């Protein structure tokens, strides 16, 4: 944590409009606190008995109080006392909080725990309640209120410090210092405090705003500053009793409190945001979640009638494109993909990450994030045109005939609902079954995917399932209907090696039983070769080769296909050898080169490749997009070991 970058980050807070405005306001208030009592104390004291509780006039902008004193001047002069009180209270809160917060570190285990437990109990009580308690103990008046608000604020600071200290202490170098025998106190001064200081100051700024508002509250109750002294809260208290006569008497001090409190508060927040400091309020930070995937209601142009003789085609995709908005215009991630899947056929889609294989699957299943633009010349599932707008009938058709299996079974189930209910939901919505019937079917399906004791398991929550079991339950969810197509996106990647095979076997069994087609997206060439009939190899958003799975290992014609296969460690590769990888980097979809996208990495690339994009040309062996398809490549050129990669 060096000074310069952190100062630069502080300054970056000033670049946001909110940061600038609140900083200016806070500075103005601080200046006023210094100069106002010097300049205007006399004007604020001037009693004008002829002009008691008057409304606004040219002489008194906001009218006068019950002794005829000018409200505006009184408010200005009160700035100093209000700020002094708020800052003193904040100081108390920070100091006491700091002491309590680091105490568990300095004291032994037992005493430390006790302090922690006390803090935990204290933070559960709202600050105002603690302040009332302390106000009673310390007595009514300014001093009592400072102590009360300061001590009431201490527990939340203590909690904050404690969390931060725990974070610092667990750092490697601190732990190392401790094992090296450096004393607790020294560690505290050397390592902990410097790390805690910045967030503490930022939070103190936020806290000062809160203290100001709290003071106004206590004074408003009559428990704060007592006459003849006056702060904003006191002025507000007096003003409220004259609300019917001169609302200005409440409005002006009220605004002063509000604007000042808010500007301290928001200034602190904007620094915190700029510096990335935790605040007391961020305990509820949103948890991390993966990128969104949502369906799109895409209305495309009506397309021609299905080609004759394709009755057994389950899925018919022609010239599919998916684009996402990028920094400089839309980025095409899938660039014209054409393929069909027949009844009972298993088609694998392989490629490196970023090749567009997952998006192709999501686009086909209408689950692309709705920021994504899906376009196609044709997109048909079971003869139904998916490019027309969404209807309930179509939802039912998709819900019962197309099953999805996602990569991470851990996050793909709703954690707050029982497994059985999540399965049953499909039948309740699409088959019109009642709760009991739907649940019976869910139990039956769980049994079908070989989950033992399905009755009991159906009543459990996802977190009570193991990873493999969850993935089987996910497949079970897919067969609540009678699917014609299962789309599985890396279904085994997140699983232990031992259960991967079980899941693949299960998919195979389901396919056999009902002649279900499968689209299997995977980066694992071996799995695809084993499970599928046909393989689509994707690179940079296009299909570069379409070949029978049996040919994948030895008869791939596209250099990229061969490179993918070569990168798989074979049985005779020694385990301690570095993993082979394809040399070069995948193409950035925002910047696809002209000519063949693979040219930069291809050992066969010639001048033509760099200028002319090879079309996907079909023959009896499949389809391939390469000017030099099938030409021999030295095995050494295909892959490299990881050590060669920058």
């Amino acid at each position, binding site marked *: 944590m060096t000074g310069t970058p952190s100062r630069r980050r502080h300054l970056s807070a000033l670049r946001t409009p909110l940061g600038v405005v609140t900083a200016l306001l806070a500075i103005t208030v601080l200046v006023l606190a210094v100069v106002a009592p010097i300049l205007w104390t006399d004007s604020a004291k001037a009693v004008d008995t002829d002009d008691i509780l008057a409304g606004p006039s040219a002489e008194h902008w906001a009218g006068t109080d019950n002794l005829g004193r000018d409200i505006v001047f009184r408010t200005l002069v009160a700035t100093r006392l209000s700020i002094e009180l708020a800052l003193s209270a904040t100081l108390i809160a920070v100091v006491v909080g700091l002491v309590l917060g680091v105490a568990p570190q300095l004291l032994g285990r037992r005493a430390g725990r006790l302090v922690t*437990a006390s803090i935990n*109990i204290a933070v*559960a*009580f*709202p600050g*105002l*309640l603690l302040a*009332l*308690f302390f*106000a*009673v*103990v310390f007595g*009514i008046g300014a001093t009592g209120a400072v102590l009360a608000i300061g001590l009431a604020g201490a527990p939340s600071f203590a909690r904050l410090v404690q969390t931060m200290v725990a974070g610092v202490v667990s750092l490697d170098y601190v732990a190392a210092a401790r094992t090296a025998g450096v004393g607790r106190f020294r560690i505290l001064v050397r390592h902990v405090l410097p790390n805690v200081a910045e967030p503490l100051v930022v939070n103190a700024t936020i806290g000062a705003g809160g203290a100001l508002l709290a003071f*106004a*509250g206590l004074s*408003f*109750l*009559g*428990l704060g500053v007592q006459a003849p002294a006056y702060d904003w809260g006191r002025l*507000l208290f007096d003003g*409220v009793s004259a*609300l*019917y006569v001169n*609302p200005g008497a409440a409005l002006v001090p*009220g605004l002063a*409190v*509000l604007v000042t409190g*808010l500007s301290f508060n928001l200034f602190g927040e904007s620094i915190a945001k700029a510096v990335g400091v935790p605040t007391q309020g961020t305990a*509820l930070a*949103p*948890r991390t*979640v*993966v990128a*969104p*995937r*949502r*369906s799109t209601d895409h209305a495309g142009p009506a397309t021609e009638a299905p080609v004759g003789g394709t009755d057994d085609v389950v899925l018919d995709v022609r010239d599919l494109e998916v684009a996402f908005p990028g920094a400089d215009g839309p980025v095409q991630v899938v660039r014209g993909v054409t393929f069909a899947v027949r009844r009972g056929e298993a088609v694998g889609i392989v490629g490196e990450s970023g090749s567009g294989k997952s998006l192709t699957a999501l686009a086909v*299943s209408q*689950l692309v*994030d709705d*920021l994504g633009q899906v376009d196609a010349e044709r997109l048909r599932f079971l003869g139904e045109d998916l490019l027309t707008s969404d209807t309930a009938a179509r939802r*039912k058709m998709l819900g019962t005939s197309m099953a*999805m299996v*996602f990569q991470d079974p851990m*996050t*793909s*189930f*709703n*954690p*707050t*609902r029982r497994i059985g209910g999540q399965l049953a*939901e*499909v039948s309740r*919505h*699409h088959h019109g079954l009642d709760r009991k019937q739907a649940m019976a079917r869910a139990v039956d399906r769980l049994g079908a995917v070989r989950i033992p004791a399905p009755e009991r398991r159906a009543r*459990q929550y996802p*977190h009570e399932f*193991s990873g493999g079991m969850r993935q089987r339950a*996910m497949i079970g*969810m897919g067969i609540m209907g009678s699917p014609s197509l299962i789309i599985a996106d890396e279904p085994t990647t997140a699983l232990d090696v031992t259960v991967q095979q079980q899941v693949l076997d299960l998919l195979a069994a389901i396919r056999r039983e009902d002649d279900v087609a499968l689209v299997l997206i995977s980066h694992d060439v071996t799995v695809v070769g084993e499970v599928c009939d046909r393989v689509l190899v994707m690179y940079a958003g296009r299909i570069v080769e379409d070949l029978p799975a049996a040919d994948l290992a030895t008869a791939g014609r596209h250099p990229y296909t061969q490179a993918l296969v070569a990168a798989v460690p074979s049985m005779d590769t020694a385990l301690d050898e570095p993993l082979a990888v394809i040399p070069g980097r995948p193409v950035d979809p925002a910047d696809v080169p002209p000519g063949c996208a693979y040219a930069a990495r291809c050992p066969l690339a010639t001048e033509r490749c760099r200028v002319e994009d090879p079309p996907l040309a079909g023959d009896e062996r499949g389809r391939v997009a390469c000017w030099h398809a099938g030409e021999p490549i030295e095995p050494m050129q295909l892959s490299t070991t990881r050590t060669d990669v920058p």
Partner: protein
Amino acid sequence: MATTEALRAAPTRTRGAWTANPWVRFGARRAGRLLVSLWVLVTAAFLMIHLIPGDPVRGALGRTASAEVVAARRASLGLDDPLWQQYLHYLKGLLTGDFGTSLISQVPTSEIISQRLPATLWLALLGFLLAVLIAVPAGVAAGVLTRRGHGRRTELGFTTTSVVLGTIPDFMLGVALVYVFGVQLDLLPVAGNSSAAAYVLPVACLAIGPAAILARVIRVEMVAVLQADFVRTARAKRLPSARVYLGHALPNALTAALTLSGLLLTGMVAGTVLVENVFAWPGLGSTITSSILNKDYPVVQAIILMYGLGVLVINSIVDVSLALLDPRSMILED
């Protein structure tokens, strides 16, 4: 991934037969914590009187009271006994429903509380209900409208409004409401609780701030949850949008909101003190303020105890509902 491992291991952990049930362990732990907090609260309330510098009885009765009266009152309060005896006496009193006697009116504090408590309870309850009724639909709608990559402007407007409304202290909001609806428009009563209309302003005053904060959190959570894998799964089941948002996304967004609403509700309990003072509401809040000013310490002590109790009860309710809503939260604590 330590938590993942813990989650996986939790249900199969072998312990004694009944301690293996996570609900039993959860209940036992929660009850233990409640008891400790209760003890701390009661002790703090007891010590409060003894921490006050000077003689509280003299303070309450004023300088004019004769020494005999003060001495007699001290004796009747047992203030001359050793501290531990007073403590035991206090605890015994609490168990038998004796919360002490007002120094000034000589009325048992339990009587004062039973008179004043209902008004405060209604205020807090209605305020909370109103806050939830505003915050949940507003937060969900804003979340859906501003999900990733959508509604930039809506998001800015929503966040600004909710930050401002959430930061204005409720007593100031109250004063403003009194001025606008009571003084200027003369539409609604601004004091007491004698008619249904009299509830409108105090309840609104109490609810607006927490509603704004809650709505903001629900929106943020909704936006996050809408990106979760399981929402995609729900879409893959081809459920109608309403079902996806309300049936799948909302319950998950609510867990964080529920944690927060515990804080908000306890904050509202404290907020009633100020709001009651703005609207001359005949509840505990206006009583505790006047009792503090009059130095009527037994009444203050009893009311502080009531507030503290309210906070503890609310926190326990929130914890239990959290466990019901998201069973993982219960195990994660182990």
